[in-house]
């Protein structure tokens, strides 16, 4: 029964190969972006977990502190309890040949560590020579195979690494990380140095200190006894606490990426819908013939379902393959951004998770079938005799416009509800965006229709119809062909509006960030010690501050010390504290701020003088806007911080604008900070000068006096600003890539729509030729039509994009990161959007226009059934 139906359709696709290409391209691109982002997000989390597991080994718990732990705590622990415990140092070092390798340096005690790492014995080889060398010889370490390959090292070679305390020469005793299959690229060992604890302490600058104490405890009672015994600065946490902290840190960023990938899929679905609609419109007469000859509607339905299922599966499989390749490209971008914004991980492996693949396959196939559903239903259920008539399709399109406008209104109301309802959280914000984009997309064809009709009437009124016949025809053709171009214009509008929205949001963010940094960095110089890698805060001596204050050109100094701790709006019991159930981990800063430095902080409301007065009193602090939003805290309310194993409360004197941390910051006066965290050193100094011209001389003087001993980094506010903006630009690279992909999909949509029109107008072309239209005029007609479609789509996309920018800043950014960003509209962005829409339409119409004239003059096209 299906034999000739399949054959006829197969030949149809052979004659219209570009339709297959566009259909597969739409599915492939949408699925590829989804797969890539999902794999990258999953891999980033897995890499965090693996890096954590490398420290953890088989430990069930670990003792941690706000900063490092004194070594004596381990000795005392072993003295008091019969417990399986091991000291650990965790730090980072960079290669010294600029290959960009960031090593995780794990310091262990090899004697006790075998209880935590059963595989450790394999590294010592057959004899115990390596073991003794590791223990006894200076600077001997175990190095992972893949790093050794990059550095062209073999076992026994020497190499140099950069730490926060300068360059250190190491001896690669043995290479680790060979998997059971013999592969030397086991990601669990990527960029890893295992050193004896003494050497690791030297590399990390943690003499007499430990990063953690690993424990294996199964007895809950013993665990509680140890908890009670621990000094206030230390507590016990489980591996899941660590994972939760890293997940919380990056959740908003990863969710934003996922949403962008969904946008690419949505635009891809537009393309699929467009292509399927056109292919069915074009095949309608043929399918009608089969119906007339006696093939039932069920047969046609079954065939079409099989056809689209086949395309869905093929496109999705292609999408998965391309997605994996894209994920490899995006992995470094995402890792870099996570490292810039949150925390560095030495493992950069891309994990191909079967779950991600299955997820993408389901999303791709279901999404494609969903996009095909409407045109399929229309084609399969249309009465045989009417499917032949184009006029029926146009009438149905006009009816659809009415429904579209009604649906738009409902969606706009939903967008307003979800954007103003804070309880909806980040997901509610994204629903608002989806409703807004869908509503405005649905409005696009009716908007084009109304605009073209208005334009046509205006021309009529001016009496210019006869003067500009081609323009008049182009206007009429634009709205006459909306059944073909409607979907493409919707996809183009969404893509351009998204580009406008993102551009406005990013440029507003950039301006706000620059303003904020210029205000915040109001000292002339900032002094800290050099940080080659992440590590513990390095102390700046008081003598340095005293000497600086004695310099005649120095007016005053500000000083800062930092600690990360848990914070909550609710007062917490000891039990809750021990289980790390507080709301979020934030950066707490202890600062001495002179009067000159007060202007660096802009408050949301209230008199700054009153705020600063309160801030200097015990029990008060100021918090960043993001923290206030995350905790839903207002001025004069109380926040609770975890200080060791205790909870300490402070009242909020003021809330200040801050774009430095999306998890939030709290600022205490140094005196208050010191009473709670006495061991945290001052690690940064701001210097206020009477004359900025004195900067070079003072830098020279400080470097001569302290530079060598302390390895100081003295940097001007201007340089920090430039560095920060560089990181900012890097952060948005991935967003740019995803936006570009969305625009490519939309461009393909417009191209397919114009190809559709071109194919349909073969017979009309002959008529126009007969009427005296030459090739140039025919091309002009097609280009004018494209120009009109692009201009109208672009015109609509600008206000839609502007509203989207508002949703992105005032809803998404506020809910995800807790900071508010004033919107800045640059006319450049708006012009660029319009030009982008025009360029996309014109480019997409060049090939069809060229084909239109070629086929018209060279080939005698067959008669049209209509």
């Amino acid at each position, binding site marked *: *029964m299906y*034999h*000739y139906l399949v*054959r*006829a*359709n*197969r*030949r*149809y696709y052979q*004659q219209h190969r570009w339709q297959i290409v566009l259909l597969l391209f739409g599915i492939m691109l949408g699925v590829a972006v989804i797969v890539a982002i999902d794999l990258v997000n999953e891999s980033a989390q897995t890499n965090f977990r693996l890096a954590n597991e490398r420290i953890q080994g088989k430990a069930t718990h670990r003792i941690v502190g706000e900063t490092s732990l004194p070594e004596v705590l381990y000795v005392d622990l072993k003295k008091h309890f019969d417990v399986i415990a091991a000291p650990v140092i965790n730090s980072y070092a960079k290669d010294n040949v600029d290959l960009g390798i960031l090593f995780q340096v794990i310091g262990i005690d090899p004697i006790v560590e075998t209880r935590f790492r059963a595989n450790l014995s394999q590294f010592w080889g057959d004899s115990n020579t390596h073991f003794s060398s590791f223990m006894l010889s200076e600077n001997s370490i175990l190095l992972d195979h893949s790093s050794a390959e990059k550095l062209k090292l073999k076992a026994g070679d020497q190499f140099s690494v950069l730490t926060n305390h300068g360059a250190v020469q190491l001896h690669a005793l043995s290479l680790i990380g060979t998997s059971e299959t013999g592969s030397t690229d086991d990601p669990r060992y990527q960029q890893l140095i295992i050193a004896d604890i003494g050497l690791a302490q030297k590399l990390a600058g943690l003499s007499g200190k430990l990063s953690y104490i690993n424990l294996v405890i199964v007895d809950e009672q013993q665990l509680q006894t140890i908890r009670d015994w621990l000094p206030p600065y230390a507590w016990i946490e489980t591996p899941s606490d660590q994972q939760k902290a890293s997940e919380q840190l990056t959740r908003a960023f990863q969710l934003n990426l996922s949403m962008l990938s969904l946008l690419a899929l949505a635009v891809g679905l537009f393309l699929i819908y467009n292509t399927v609609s056109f292919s069915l419109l074009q095949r309608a*007469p*043929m399918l009608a*013939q*089969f*119906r*007339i*000859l*006696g*093939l*039932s*509607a*069920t047969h046609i339905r079954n065939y079409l379902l099989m056809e689209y299922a086949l395309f869905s599966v093929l496109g999705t499989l292609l999408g998965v393959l391309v997605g994996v390749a894209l994920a490899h490209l995006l992995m470094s971008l995402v890792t870099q951004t996570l490292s810039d914004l949150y925390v560095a991980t030495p493992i950069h492996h891309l994990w191909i998770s079967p779950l991600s693949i299955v997820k993408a396959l389901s999303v791709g196939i279901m999404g494609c079938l969903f996009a095909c559903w409407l045109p399929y239903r229309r084609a399969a259920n249309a*009465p*045989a*005799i009417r499917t032949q008539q184009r006029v029926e399709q146009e009438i149905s399109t006009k009816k659809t416009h009415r429904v579209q406008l009604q649906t738009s209104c409902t969606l706009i109301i939903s967008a307003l509800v979800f954007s103003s309802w804070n309880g909806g959280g980040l997901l509610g914000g994204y629903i608002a965006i989806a409703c807004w984009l869908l509503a405005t997309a649905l409005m696009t064809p009716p908007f084009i229709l109304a605009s073209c009709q208005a334009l046509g009437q205006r021309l009529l009124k001016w009496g210019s119809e006869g003067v500009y016949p081609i323009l008049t025809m182009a206007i009429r053709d634009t709205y006459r062909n909306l059944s073909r171009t409607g979907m493409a214009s919707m996809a183009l509008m969404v893509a351009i509006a998204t580009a406008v929205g993102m551009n406005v949001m990013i440029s507003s963010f950039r301006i706000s960030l620059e303003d904020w940094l210029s205000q915040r960095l109001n000292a002339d110089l900032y002094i800290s010690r050099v940080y080659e890698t992440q590590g513990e805060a390095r102390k700046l001596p008081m003598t340095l501050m005293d000497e600086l204050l004695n310099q005649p050109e120095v007016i005053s100094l500000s000083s800062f010390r930092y600690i990360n701790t848990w914070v909550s709006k609710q007062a917490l019991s000891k039990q809750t504290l021990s289980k790390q159930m507080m709301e979020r981990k934030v950066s707490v800063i202890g600062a001495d701020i002179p009067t000159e430095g007060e202007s660096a902080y802009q408050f949301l409301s209230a008199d700054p003088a009153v705020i600063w007065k309160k801030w200097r009193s015990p029990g008060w602090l100021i918090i960043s806007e993001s923290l206030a939003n995350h905790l839903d805290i207002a001025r004069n309310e109380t926040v609770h911080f975890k200080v060791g194993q205790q909870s300490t409360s402070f009242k909020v004197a003021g809330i200040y604008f801050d774009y430095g941390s999306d998890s939030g910051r709290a600022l205490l006066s140094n005196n208050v900070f010191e009473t709670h965290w006495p061991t945290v050193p001052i690690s940064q100094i701001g210097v206020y000068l009477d004359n900025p011209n004195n900067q070079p001389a003072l830098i020279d003087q400080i470097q001569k006096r302290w530079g060598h001993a302390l390895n100081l980094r003295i940097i001007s506010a201007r340089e920090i600003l430039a560095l920060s903006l560089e990181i900012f630009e890097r952060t948005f690279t991935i967003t740019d890539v995803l936006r570009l992909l969305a625009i490519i999909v939309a461009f393909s949509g417009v191209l397919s729509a114009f190809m559709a029109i071109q194919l349909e107008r073969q017979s009309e072309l002959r008529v126009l030729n007969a009427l005296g239209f030459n090739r140039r005029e025919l091309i002009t007609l097609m280009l004018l039509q494209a120009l009109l479609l692009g201009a109208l789509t672009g015109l609509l996309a600008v206000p839609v994009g502007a509203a989207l920018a508002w949703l992105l800043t005032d809803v998404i950014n506020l809910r995800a990161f807790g900071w508010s960003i004033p919107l800045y509209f640059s006319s450049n962005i708006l012009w660029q959007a319009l030009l982008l829409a025009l360029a996309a339409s014109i480019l997409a119409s060049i090939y069809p226009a060229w084909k239109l004239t070629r086929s018209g003059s060279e080939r005698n096209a*067959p*008669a049209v*059934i209509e």
Partner: protein
Amino acid sequence: MVFKHLDISVERGETVIILGQSGSGKSTLLNLIAGLDTAEEGEIIFQAEHSCHINICDMNEQQRTAFRRRHIGFIFQFFNLIPTLTVTENVRLPLQLNKQLKEAHLADELLSSVGLAHCLHKFPEQLSGGEQQRVAICRALVHQPTLLLADEPTGSLDNKTATEVIKLLFSQTHEHGQTLLLATHNHDLIPLADRVLTLQQGSLVQFKAHSTAI
């Protein structure tokens, strides 16, 4: 389209020409008989061989499709051949739909009999208008339907080709004893028909033997 008091009956093997101006309801009547369109009121009774009377208006979509597949052959003004099937495939299509695969040779024989043996593997767009309409006639006849419906079959052909096609159509239907209903503007065809039916705005104004109609 509204038909008023339209009551006609056509005998097996009869050739009937339906005359009328554009919009008089000629095509609608053929579509209704073929089950391509449905009537809100009235009856269209068909008596198949060895079977009782069937009212097409009582059939559902599926039944109408099965009825059309078995009993109807349709010829259009614009040929309506499937552009992506070859000539022979187009003609074999009704045989395949009726599961008469063993009689596939009939298609080629029929095409040869109308002088298209050289075109079997060509695609419709490679043929002239007259050739395309001859293929369409073969497709309509190949499964030996009881009723042949032709809607302006010569409307897009020149006079010479139109005459050839009409001759072919009438000779084939006579040869196979099929009933032919042919909608046309062309009064020259009247002498060829057994009877003539004239429609005007959905009403039957004449239904007579051709000699009377003239």
